[in-house]
């Protein structure tokens, strides 16, 4: 059976879910039904994606004579897209499990869930598009529905602002993508993706390069490549938890899909420079993303920046793969592509998980400010465990999935010397170094991101009053399981991904990658090897042994438990523990060239010299460099332009007739030439 057929089922179910949500969203059973359908669709999509990895690319089909904006609806499910489809399915199931407990049934919720399911449908459309028009329409639909998602609570100006950033940048990106497609289809006079791909070599290198760069930029807006990333930290905090989880877990990854699509199928460019550009952009994005994450105290903004970092890692891998492709190293190219896709899957899982848990925390405490939380591990134990798994994953610590994919990426980059060009080798190693820095900072950032909200003493009354009853658990739990599975089941995953990579690069890496059953070798036998499965098992055992010993052995001496040693202070107060911002102060000081913090101190001793002690307030505001120095000028320019052309709109009919006349005249003249 054709995976595309299963995808039809998923699409249908999502459409049905959207309808149900729209009609019965304000009614709890309706809400549940909507989510149930959505989950069903997710499961179907996951199956379709997984199946398509094994099945390979399907043929392009045009169901009936359905046309859309003048173009035929062309559908196709490729193995490359299959990875994303499977991820989409898993995320959809998690969101569906999460929503019923997170949302109160209401009209707004109904509309919101309808939009969410349509967005999922649109994403499936993007991934299953076999033709240019289908792709673009699905892509635009996705953007618009996501805009609705972000506008769930349109009352606050924050929300409007975040949603606007998202829409504006999406539209700019969309135009660029359209341009890229138009170039290709014009040069190959085809609209079917397969045909474009097959005729791509006929297009001159310059046009291909132009198309690729347009696509890179266009999709970069979605993926959040620096400096095109500004919408993420604005849109994520204002969207509902599952909405922002969807944005980070799926939408952003689709940007990566688009880049991969152009880089490896539609417009494979000769020469190594596009790869270098991509890789450079990726490495830069990763480093800057995590650095800004360290300066955030709002959990969701923090996670949004960490998304930027992860996309950076993925794009770096893709770029390196392109370079190796250009240097006739198909094995390594395929390997890095696989690693990149693996990271896509991982990021989709743990980032969705963390956003959902952020939602749980906000739900339970009413705040997203890390410095107003603390001690939640005692109040939300199950959520804390789930969040901890996600944190281990995203911090790329063994034995979890983040470690596997990042290890693969590093192993790929370290083999830069195989390109034979010293310059390229050095540049690739530099990128690896950037990722190294990123990885280190990421661990630092997520020690903070987990430790401050979950450990220690509650910093506010709300945090102390947090309870777990009524909090959604199943969705995040599912993703936690997925994270573990992606780590332990790495060989299976790699085998599947290598099939996907084959359809793109034409290299069968399976044997080379997995000589043994469970051991992974990075493309070249003489380089290195490691087995995520054994590692996971071993680490688990290593933790279990002392536990067993402890459980087995009787405690000999009677142990007394006394409070933490606090220097004999009369009362130890929450204000005396590390806060999120003080924890990351060392980086703020080290990188203040980037942050340009504006420090403001208010203390009792400032205004009277007598030495009266009193309240102290310290703020270090990080300058939003890109908004201020890149976007604001553009916005001003646009406004200026608008003012400049306003006189044309005089409202005088005769004047408008004159315009018409002039245009027709111009047309004639051009026709005559």
């Amino acid at each position, binding site marked *: 059976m054709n995976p595309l057929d299963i995808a039809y089922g998923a699409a249908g179910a999502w459409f049905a879910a959207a309808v149900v949500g729209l009609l019965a969203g304000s009614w709890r059973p309706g809400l549940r039904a909507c989510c149930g359908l959505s989950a069903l669709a997710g499961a179907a999509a996951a199956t379709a994606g997984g199946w398509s990895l094994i099945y390979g690319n399907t043929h392009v089909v045009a169901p009936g004579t359905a046309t859309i904006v003048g173009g035929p609806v062309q559908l196709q499910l490729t193995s490359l897209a299959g990875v994303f489809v499977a991820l989409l399915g898993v995320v959809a199931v998690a969101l569906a499990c999460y929503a019923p407990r997170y949302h109160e049934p209401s009209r707004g919720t109904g509309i919101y869930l309808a939009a969410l399911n349509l967005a999922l449908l649109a994403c499936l459309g993007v991934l299953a598009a076999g033709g240019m028009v289908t792709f673009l329409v699905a892509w635009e639909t996705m953007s618009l529905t996501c805009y609705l998602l972000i506008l769930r609570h349109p009352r606050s100006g924050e929300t409007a602002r975040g949603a606007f950033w998202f829409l504006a940048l999406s539209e700019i990106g969309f135009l660029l993508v359209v341009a890229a497609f138009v170039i290709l289809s014009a040069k190959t006079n085809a609209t079917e993706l397969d045909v474009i791909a097959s005729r791509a070599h006929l297009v001159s290198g310059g046009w291909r390069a132009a198309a690729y760069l347009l696509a890179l930029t266009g999709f970069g807006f979605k993926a959040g490549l620096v400096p095109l990333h500004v919408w993420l930290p604005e849109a994520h905090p204002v969207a509902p938890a599952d909405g922002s989880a969807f944005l980070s877990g799926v939408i952003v990854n689709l940007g990566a899909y688009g880049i991969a699509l152009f880089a490896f199928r539609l417009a494979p460019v000769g020469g190594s420079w596009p790869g270098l550009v991509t890789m450079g952009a990726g490495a830069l994005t990763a480093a800057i993303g995590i650095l800004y994450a360290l300066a955030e*105290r709002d959990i969701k903004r923090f996670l949004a920046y960490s998304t930027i970092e992860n996309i950076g890692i993925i794009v770096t891998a893709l770029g390196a793969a392109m370079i190796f492709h250009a240097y006739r190293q198909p094995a390594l190219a395929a390997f890095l592509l696989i690693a990149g896709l693996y990271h896509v899957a991982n990021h989709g899982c743990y980032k969705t998980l963390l956003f959902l848990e952020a939602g749980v925390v906000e739900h339970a405490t009413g705040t997203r400010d890390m*410095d107003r939380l603390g001690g939640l591990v005692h109040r939300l134990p199950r959520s804390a465990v789930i969040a901890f798994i996600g944190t281990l994953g995203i911090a790329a610590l063994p034995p979890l999935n983040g470690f596997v994919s990042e290890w693969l990426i590093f192993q790929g980059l370290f083999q830069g010397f195989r390109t034979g060009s010293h310059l390229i080798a050095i540049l690739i190693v530099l990128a690896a170094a950037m990722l190294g820095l990123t990885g280190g900072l990421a661990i630092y950032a997520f020690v903070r991101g987990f430790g401050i909200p979950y450990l220690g003493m509650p910093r506010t009354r709300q945090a102390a009053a947090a309870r777990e009853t009524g909090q959604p658990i199943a969705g995040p739990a599912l993703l936690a399981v997925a994270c573990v599975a992606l780590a332990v089941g790495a060989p299976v995953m790699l085998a599947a991904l290598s099939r996907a990579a084959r359809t793109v690069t034409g290299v069968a890496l399976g044997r080379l990658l997995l000589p043994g059953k469970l051991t992974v070798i990075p493309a070249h036998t003489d380089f290195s090897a490691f087995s995520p499965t054994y590692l996971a098992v071993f680490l688990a055992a290593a933790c279990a042994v002392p536990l067993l010993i402890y459980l087995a052995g009787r405690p000999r001496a009677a142990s007394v438990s006394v409070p933490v040693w*606090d*220097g*004999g*202070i*009369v009362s*130890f*107060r929450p*204000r*005396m*523990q*590390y*806060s999120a*911002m*003080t*924890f*990351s*102060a*060392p980086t*703020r*000081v080290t990188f203040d060239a980037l942050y340009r913090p504006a420090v403001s*101190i208010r*203390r*009792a*001793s400032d205004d*009277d*010299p*007598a*030495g*009266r*002690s*009193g*309240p*102290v*307030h*310290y*703020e*270090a505001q990080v300058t939003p460099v890109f908004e201020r120095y890149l976007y604001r000028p553009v916005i001003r320019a646009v406004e200026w332009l608008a003012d400049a052309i306003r006189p044309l709109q005089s409202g005088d009919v005769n004047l408008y007739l004159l315009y018409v006349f002039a245009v027709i005249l111009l047309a004639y003249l051009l026709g005559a030439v």
Partner: protein
Amino acid sequence: MTAVQPYAAATSEQLVRQLADLGSLEVGDGAATRGAVTVRMPPETLEAATHVIAGTPGVRLADMFAANDGDAATLRLVWALDSGYLLTEAEIEGDQYPPLSDITPAAFVEECEIYEQFGIRPETGKPLNRLMLPPHAGPDFPRLGHRPAQPPEEVHAPHTVGGQAFEFPFGPVRQVGVESLYYGLVTSGEEIVDVYLFTWHKHRGMEWRLRGQTLPEAMFLAERVEGLSAVAVGWAFAAAAEAALGIAPPPAAARTRAVALELERLYNHAAAMAALCQATGLTVGQSAAEIALERLLRVNATAFGHRYLFGVVEPGGATRAPDAAVLQRDLPAAYGELRRAADALLNTNSFMDRLEACGILTAEQARRLGLVGPVARATGLAADTRLNGSHPRSGPAGGGPYAEHPVTVITAADGDVLARFQVMLGEAAESVRLIGTFLDAGAAAERTPLPVKGDGEAGGGHGLGWAESSRGEVLAWVALDEDGRIARARLRPGSVRNWRGFDDACRSQNVFTDIPIIEASFWLTAAGMAR
């Protein structure tokens, strides 16, 4: 070392003349404090008078305290001029007085203390700090005067830390062999934003205990107010008592006290040096300094029979004479150790780099906060009560040991830890020189007999006394009742003033690891602060 900046320019006569314009003043009447020019004024002129005095260039508020005569409390302000002390006193009706700390910030610490002890506070309802009374001190907790009207939470400003900073709690139980004290370092993770200093842990009610005691009993406690400057506090207290009784120690006994005082300064500076090495993690230097320290203490023991020179000073004279031979034999060797260690330290960059530009205080700050001792002198102010003419006179004729053998005051300009260190080293050398001259002039264990009851003289009197400890000026004010017992004794070690400068020094652009260094360079005691 810079040129000596006179701390106070004006003389008491000029000031008194200026004050006379303000109206009804009694200058130095019968009940006046001996040992200082006393100006008694009605409370309404207090504010104006304070404006005049504080406005005079370089006059420093040395101390402020209250005493209960009958029901009303009398407020006394001690002003340090370079020719001596000026004491302004005013009786306060009710429980409020003009806000003096707005005129001269140095008064703030005492305002807090007076509120805790007597329940009277400045009219401006500004919050006060908790200084001495522990939080558990109830309404019936023993005090010198009436208990405060308002409960503490209405008086003390809340300690809240907002924004991107947190309070790093430090103490009260701190490193090994360090006194109990709490400070909360408010930090952004790197630099120190603010410091909360709590000094009430060691409050032992010394001034409360002294009431009703005989002078010898009181002497025993006075030495234990701040054991590391037992001689200085003892001398100040004895001098105050002597002034109250109108007697003076014999010159030879005064020289004995001076020898002990300089020995005390020597070992304290050695100890401060050791502490600096410990704070900078230079263990070898610490050992070298501690060898010198131990040898100096042994010199004390052999010369005076006590490692910390307890029991040397007594009201009217000195109990023990220094063993001149021992001193001339052992002191140079012990000081040699100190000198060699110091030279080695001055050549150790890893050490000097930590000291430079760390914990900076400006001369302006020092003047404003009335800082004393090496801390003030390191900012360029020549604040030294040993300066000619301003040390307790021994006998109506004699000008006191420091008048006969003037001290060269050591100052430095930068006001950072290094400057303090250099001042200490200079003073150590100066102390050795002075000890030599005092011994040559002859030091003995003589004493002027205290007038016994019925002598007429024994009748109650007030006396002000002071001495220059290694931490700076120690002030004592004693009021005796008819039968020679203590009605009210005020003891103010140098630590009280300089702890006030400590948090300012910490705030001046420092990171975490500088704080121990700054504390070592101040070399203060919590015991002296809390009393």
